[in-house]
């Protein structure tokens, strides 16, 4: 077993363990911190996939912004996020069965398929190519996404504003 494989297994186990704890923890605040750990594990996986730019973006956007936003929201609704509250609804067992079945089907199909084994050589400069794609081929979607982000943030301020 090579070093990347060992790294993948270690990081994968940590990521999935943290993710399971996120959805099962009784304390929502613990869930939020474990969510940040999950995001960090995914960032390490991006490094394993030769995309350090996306790993940096993952750390900045997900850990730096989204996790902190979620923790803020929990703090602002602290009273109802008390640890003694039941966090599962009545259909949790059905949900568990559905999730496990879905994973069984997906994993079975993935392992049945004969994927080409090795990575192809990275012919292009990924970061430079990404920058060129954003102002070239994908210029319009890129601008649309930036407008969507702006509208969402303005909308969030208006919705959450004290009236």
């Amino acid at each position, binding site marked *: 077993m090579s070093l990347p494989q060992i790294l993948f297994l270690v990081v994968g186990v940590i990521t999935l363990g943290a993710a399971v704890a996120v*959805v099962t923890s009784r304390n929502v605040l613990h869930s939020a911190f474990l969510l940040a750990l999950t995001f960090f594990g995914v960032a390490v996986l991006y490094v394993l996939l030769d995309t350090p730019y996306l790993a940096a973006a993952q750390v900045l956007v997900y850990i730096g912004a989204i996790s902190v936003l979620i923790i803020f929201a929990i703090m602002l*609704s602290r009273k109802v996020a008390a640890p003694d509250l039941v966090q599962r609804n009545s259909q949790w067992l059905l949900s568990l069965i559905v*999730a*496990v079945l879905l994973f069984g089907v997906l994993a079975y199909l993935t392992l049945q398929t004969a994927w080409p084994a090795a990575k192809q050589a990275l012919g292009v400069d*990924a970061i430079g190519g990404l920058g060129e794609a954003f102002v070239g081929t994908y210029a319009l979607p890129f601008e649309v996404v930036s407008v*969507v982000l702006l509208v969402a943030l303005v909308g969030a301020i208006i919705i959450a504003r004290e009236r």
Partner: protein
Amino acid sequence: MVPLSWFLVLGAALFCIGVYGVLSRRNAIGILMGVELILNAVNINLIAFWRYRTPDHLTGLVFAVFVMAIAAAEAAVGLALIIAIYRTRNTVIVEDVDLLKM
């Protein structure tokens, strides 16, 4: 060399954990965390397929960046809605928010 199928199985597992979180949580913030897990699983798949199948075309990478931006927008709007609901109804338990239910 890590095989592609490892990444796909990990993505599938993360996706299903997120689905379970969305379906079983009573807390609206918990549901939002499940959605974030799902979007991360999708991103792992997109980037893994890009890296192993079409490294010369950057479509998968570009799409992953778009998913990230949309996830940030979704988190901002979702949490603003949760805070607005908490302010008016004094709860974040989704079962208690049934204004539209006849």
